[in-house]
């Protein structure tokens, strides 16, 4: 078996071919934003037009991972039998955005409606992938949604999605574990929280107050609550400043104590080990968005009766400031051929019957009506020991600090969080330095993408 020269070249060449396969999927695109721009702003669509679209029927593809939408889609199809909705779970969060961006670039396979979190919406608006819903009369919905979510779907004077849920933060904790370590009242301030974290971990090194391996969404929400405003955005001019931001430094200093003491469970959120850790009582609490209850109930069944909800710990004693963590909207994609029908579905799912259906099934509402309804506020849940958790969560929704904004390329920025700030969690740098590195990398990308960076 001798190998000839020619075969050698072919072997080498096939190496090249396989190397290129990695980009092949990504590169099957670059048509460069050839999306149909058939929608003009001025044309206003009346409710009658929407009704007509609903009775005429048609097919809709909806990409979403939110579990309560299944029931909404079923009810919707019963009410409007001529509409067929194909509900696709194309991944959660970033995974879906990757698929969505690729579909938009490729110009095919784009759904009519997509589930997009508030932090990611500006990126899709900027690339003109989603439709301005003003043309369907979305501006008239002002006052229907709570202020935080409603602000999050607006950009450049347009409305680019309808809020589906919101994530005002609260402290979800396992009361059984807390009690076992002598913590009778949940920490009201972050100082108390740090003290409790050390107390728990010192008493049993296998138990942690919470897990954290560096999470961009959590970190930005914490900075938000601490009064930080590291991002400034005005059109295509953006600013990123963690190093000189007081709120950021407040958070970094506090969290560094937990990192240094190894008081945080080195388990990533949403991993299998995460659920196991909570089920085994090794991860005692989560500071997370108000949408968490349904995930806890389905993911940590054995914790039933043990978990409680308390207000988010404060930076100053007696304070009443919270922030949002996650929360998402439904948006109509520009590539949709049936935008009117798509908007009619959006309205059904977020404002009309769907809003109530989703709340009944455990979602946290973004609508004023559902949020303030006595039924919602007084609902008790055996999982949380019959605590009226919605009162705590609704209170948090009303205390969200104003004035926060995300970058128009936050999806990318979050993807490199662990390359930079993540180093702090493995002892490579301090959290403050890590956040500075994140800032530098974000600025570099922003400049490279043609933004004016302050």
């Amino acid at each position: 078996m001798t190998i000839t020269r020619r075969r050698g070249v072919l072997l080498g060449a096939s190496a090249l071919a396989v190397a290129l396969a990695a980009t092949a999927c990504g590169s099957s695109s670059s048509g460069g934003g050839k999306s149909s721009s058939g929608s003009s702003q001025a044309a206003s669509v009346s409710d009658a037009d929407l009704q007509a679209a609903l009775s005429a029927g048609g097919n809709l593809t909806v990409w979403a991972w939110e579990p309560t939408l299944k029931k909404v889609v079923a009810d919707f199809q019963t009410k409007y039998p001529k509409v067929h909705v194909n509900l696709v779970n194309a991944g959660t969060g970033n995974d879906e955005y990757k698929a969505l961006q690729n579909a938009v670039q490729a110009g095919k396979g784009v759904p009519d409606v997509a589930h997009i979190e508030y932090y990611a919406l500006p990126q899709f608006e900027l690339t003109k992938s989603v439709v301005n819903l003003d043309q369907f009369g979305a501006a008239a919905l002002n006052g229907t949604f709570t202020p935080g979510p409603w602000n999050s779907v607006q950009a450049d004077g347009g409305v680019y999605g309808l809020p589906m849920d919101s994530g005002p933060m609260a402290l979800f904790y396992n009361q059984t574990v807390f009690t076992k370590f002598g913590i009778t009242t949940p920490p009201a301030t972050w100082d108390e929280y740090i003290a409790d974290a050390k107390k728990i971990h010192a008493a049993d090194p296998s138990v942690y107050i919470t897990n954290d391996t560096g999470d961009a969404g959590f970190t930005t929400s914490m900075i938000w609550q601490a009064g930080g405003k590291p991002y400034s955005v005005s059109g295509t001019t953006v600013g990123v400043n963690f190093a000189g931001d007081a709120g950021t430094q407040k958070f970094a200093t506090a969290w560094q104590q937990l990192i240094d003491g190894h008081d945080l469970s080195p388990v990533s959120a949403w991993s299998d080990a995460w659920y196991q850790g909570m089920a085994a009582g090794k991860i005692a609490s989560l500071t997370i968005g108000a949408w968490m209850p349904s995930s806890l109930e389905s993911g940590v069944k054995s914790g039933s009766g043990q978990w409680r909800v308390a207000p988010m710990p404060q930076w100053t004693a007696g304070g009443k400031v919270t922030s949002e963590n996650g929360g998402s909207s439904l948006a109509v994609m520009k590539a949709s051929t049936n935008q009117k029908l798509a908007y009619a579905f959006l309205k059904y799912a977020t404002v009309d019957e769907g809003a109530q259906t989703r709340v009944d099934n455990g979602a946290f509402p973004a609508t004023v009506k559902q949020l303030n309804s006595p039924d919602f506020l007084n609902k008790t849940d055996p999982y949380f020991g019959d605590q009226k958790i919605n009162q705590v969560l609704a209170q948090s929704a009303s205390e969200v600090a104003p004035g926060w904004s995300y970058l128009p390329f936050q999806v990318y920025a979050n993807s490199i969080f662990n390359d930079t700030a993540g180093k702090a969690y493995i002892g490579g740098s301090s959290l403050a330095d890590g956040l500075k590195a994140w800032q530098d990398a974000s600025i570099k990308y922003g400049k490279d993408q043609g933004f004016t960076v302050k």
Partner: protein
Amino acid sequence: MASPPLDLARPRRRAGRRRGSLAGWKFVSPFMALFALVFLAPIGYSIYLSLYKTQLIGGTHFVGLQNYSDALKDSQFWTSFSRVALFLVIQVPIMLGLALFLALAIDSGRLYGAAFFRISVFMPYAVPAVVATLMWSFMYGTQFGLVRDIDKHFGVTLPDPLSPHLILASIGNIVTWEWVGYNMLILYSALRVVNPSLYEAAAIEGAGQWRIIWSIKLPALRPAIVIATIFSIIGSFQLFNEPSILKHLAPNAITTYYTPNYYAYSLSFDGQQFNYSATVAIIMGVVTMIIAYAVQLRGIRKAV
């Protein structure tokens, strides 16, 4: 020269030759079509992409070779490149050494249950890389995995396989587990075609097993080892599945530019930098080609 019969014959012959060459093209045309479609077109398209730059603000414009000069100065690219190079010089010799040992062991005929042994060593190759990595990741876990169970049971503290300084070795372990059987099979099949009369002659001359391995089996294996080495070089440079899955468990140890392929993936899927991603892929393709070709040449020279 100008005699009538020749004049008649010449055009006929010419026509015949032309028909013959056409027939040849027809035979290779299915290959050529497929070759153009799945091989030349993607490469051509990637090269085309690599000459442009698309920005979120400002759209697409021609930049010539700027992406290439950027990539050659990109420390993240070189970090990822040196990582797979390190992986290559350590993992590939270990894996091929093991494969060689196993192939010789099976071929020696002194192994009880050789067929079972052969299939069980080969079996991990049949497990998809994604599944294999998930399986290993459960074992690697220090919080809820096998490592924790061992720690707890024996009261020891094993080093964390997912920590930044050990994770490359952990990936090497997974890759070795996956590919040893495959390489063993390449080497073993090369041993099977050795003419048995050589062994008989060696036995008559009084050669021992080690002498037979050294003087007959290893020279016979050389081309197969060259092939296996080239496959392994390509595989190392393309490392992707294992780090991309382990990133969920070790998000800080595995960066978005952990290997060149993972870097290309992150660039296009997270950063929407399709042009730059294509550039990285092409550079890696060329580098892989050069190294594979160099190994190839060296393998041939030694054989002569």
